[in-house]
């Protein structure tokens, strides 16, 4: 899975930390650098979004390759975590193959060195913009005029399109796990609606956070920060995505899903975003934001909020904590300076305890799944190894809480979720099986009819 691919490069050390391009003597290809930097940033951002996806559930995202099944969450990746995924970097580096050997070693060593420098010294250079390819473009004055050909790219970055994609994939997972026959139109409408709502929420989030984003390394290249788009346009875009998105969900799918979508947008933009700067409770709110998209996928399929939906939401909710707490452990300096209230800065002990607690909760929730008739009993058995592994890393993080354990936990969480969802899907209790178990012949007959219908 792409997530696994992305997670594997353990050199992802830099991923967690500030990504800086150090310009060396390779002046002859400045554009490549700029491109590398920008793509790196984009990928980093999306990857981060990916991770934060859960947090920023904007309800609609559907399953993403990596983490969630359709979930609209822009979540986490968003503002919260300014971790820069090294994997993303690596991926980018790999992509630009002709120049890559130079870039790779350069970026790795430079970022590693940079990280060390950043972490240790109170160098004043730290707060100055990183020199390098980006500075060439950055140091120039730019006209604040909107160019139509740039617009798609700008809007993609504004809506955090990759994060949105992840959220949508989480929602798809919720939809797929629902014990009803698969309907393609409903699935597509739910995915689209979730995606639109996610775009809207992400745009509003960026609209609110301009001065803070400019001060944090991960987010300082966002469109609003760079003046590529006016705030008015960002708000209009958000409205033009959000309103049709919610309308699509309410009218095209069902009112419950639409309500959940609207609630999630509200939760993300009006609760989570301001709360990030006020109290550490934002982490729990963000986890709920992340948990809602799969619930939305489920309600889109079944039209009702039953225990299966809540279980899926619960799994995603619990997953958020090891994921985010591990991530935020490496960003403490940026959070402290930027004024973000995160557990990793203010209550480090709590941060570690909560991460471990929720790793263990995942084991418990996986065991509950067959009890609620969502999956067969093979699911807790098959998922036990990966759940135990993440709990083991969670325990290491709890005990040691250093850079390496936090990174290991974080990267594990990246592949853990997609794999868990995949295993869950393969262990899904088929509707036919459930029918056999059903006592009421009438009901099973009815369900049999449902299956036969196109």
């Amino acid at each position, binding site marked *: 899975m792409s997530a696994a691919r992305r997670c594997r490069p353990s050199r992802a050390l830099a991923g967690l930390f500030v990504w800086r391009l150090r310009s060396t003597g390779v002046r002859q290809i400045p554009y490549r650098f700029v491109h590398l930097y920008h793509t790196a940033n984009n990928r980093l951002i999306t990857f981060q979004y990916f991770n934060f996806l859960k947090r920023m559930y904007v309800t609609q995202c559907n399953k993403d390759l990596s983490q969630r099944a359709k979930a609209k969450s822009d979540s986490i990746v968003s503002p919260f975590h300014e971790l820069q995924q090294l994997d993303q970097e690596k991926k980018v580096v790999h992509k630009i193959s002709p120049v890559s050997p130079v870039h790779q070693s350069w970026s790795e060593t430079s970022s590693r060195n940079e990280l060390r420098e950043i*972490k240790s010294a*109170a160098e004043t250079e730290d707060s100055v913009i990183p020199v390098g390819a980006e500075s060439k473009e950055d140091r120039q004055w730019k006209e604040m005029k909107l160019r139509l050909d740039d617009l798609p790219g700008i809007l993609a970055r504004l809506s955090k399109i990759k994060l949105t994609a992840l959220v949508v994939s989480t929602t798809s997972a919720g939809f797929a796990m629902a014990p009803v026959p698969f309907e393609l139109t409903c699935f597509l409408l739910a995915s689209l609606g979730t995606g639109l709502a996610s775009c809207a929420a992400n745009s509003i989030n960026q609209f609110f956070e301009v001065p803070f984003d400019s001060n944090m390394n991960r987010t300082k290249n966002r469109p609003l920060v760079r003046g590529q788009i006016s705030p008015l346009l960002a708000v209009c875009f958000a409205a033009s995505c959000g309103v049709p998105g919610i309308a699509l969900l309410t009218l095209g799918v069902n009112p419950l899903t639409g309500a959940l979508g609207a609630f999630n947008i509200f939760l993300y933009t009006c609760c989570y975003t301001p709360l990030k700067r006020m109290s550490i409770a934002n982490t729990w709110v963000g986890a709920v934001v992340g948990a809602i998209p799969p619930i939305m996928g489920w309600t889109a399929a079944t039209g009702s909020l039953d225990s299966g939906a809540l279980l899926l939401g619960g799994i995603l909710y619990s997953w958020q904590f090891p994921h985010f707490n591990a991530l935020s452990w490496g960003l403490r300096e940026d959070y402290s300076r930027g*004024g973000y209230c995160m557990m990793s800065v203010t209550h480090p002990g709590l941060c570690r305890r909560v991460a471990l607690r929720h790793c263990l909760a995942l084991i418990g929730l996986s065991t509950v799944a067959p009890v609620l008739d969502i999956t067969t009993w093979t699911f807790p058995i098959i998922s036990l190894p990966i759940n135990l592994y993440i709990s083991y890393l969670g325990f290491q993080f709890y005990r040691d809480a*250093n850079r390496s354990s936090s990174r290991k936990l974080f990267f594990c969480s990246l592949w853990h979720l997609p794999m868990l969802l995949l295993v869950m899907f393969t262990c899904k209790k088929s509707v036919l099986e459930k029918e056999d178990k059903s006592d009421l012949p009438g009901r099973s007959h009815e369900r049999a009819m449902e299956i036969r219908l196109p």
Partner: protein
Amino acid sequence: PPAHSHSDWIGPPDKHSNLRPIIFYVPPEESALERRLREARQEAQASNQRFWARHNRAFRQEKEEFIYSRLKAKGLEMRDESGQKATLNAEEMADFYKDFLSKNLKKHLQYNRDWYKRNFRITFLMGQVALVKALRWLRRRKKNVEQ
């Protein structure tokens, strides 16, 4: 920015505040509404710049002081034999980050409130200006069509 330009120009991030300064274009026939918008944006820019420059400077300074005091307590000098600046590891710095965040929390809450108010006001004014411009353009087109 060139003298003949008719749009705003945005520059590289400031060294202290990390914010990008904007040079606003003043059109010759600027309406009262447009002037209000421009002044609101200029004021917000100045206020943000002041806040973040001061805040970041304080952060850097306090960080240096913290490192110095900790190194002193450990009996080390600021620079080691090779001339490199001595540093503390992440766990030791964590105390500083926690302290700094809690000290500045109130300041941030106040700033957040201000920033949100300003942001909404500027965006609302932008909306008004855009609406007026659109109406004017429509009226001009109608006149051209009639002629």
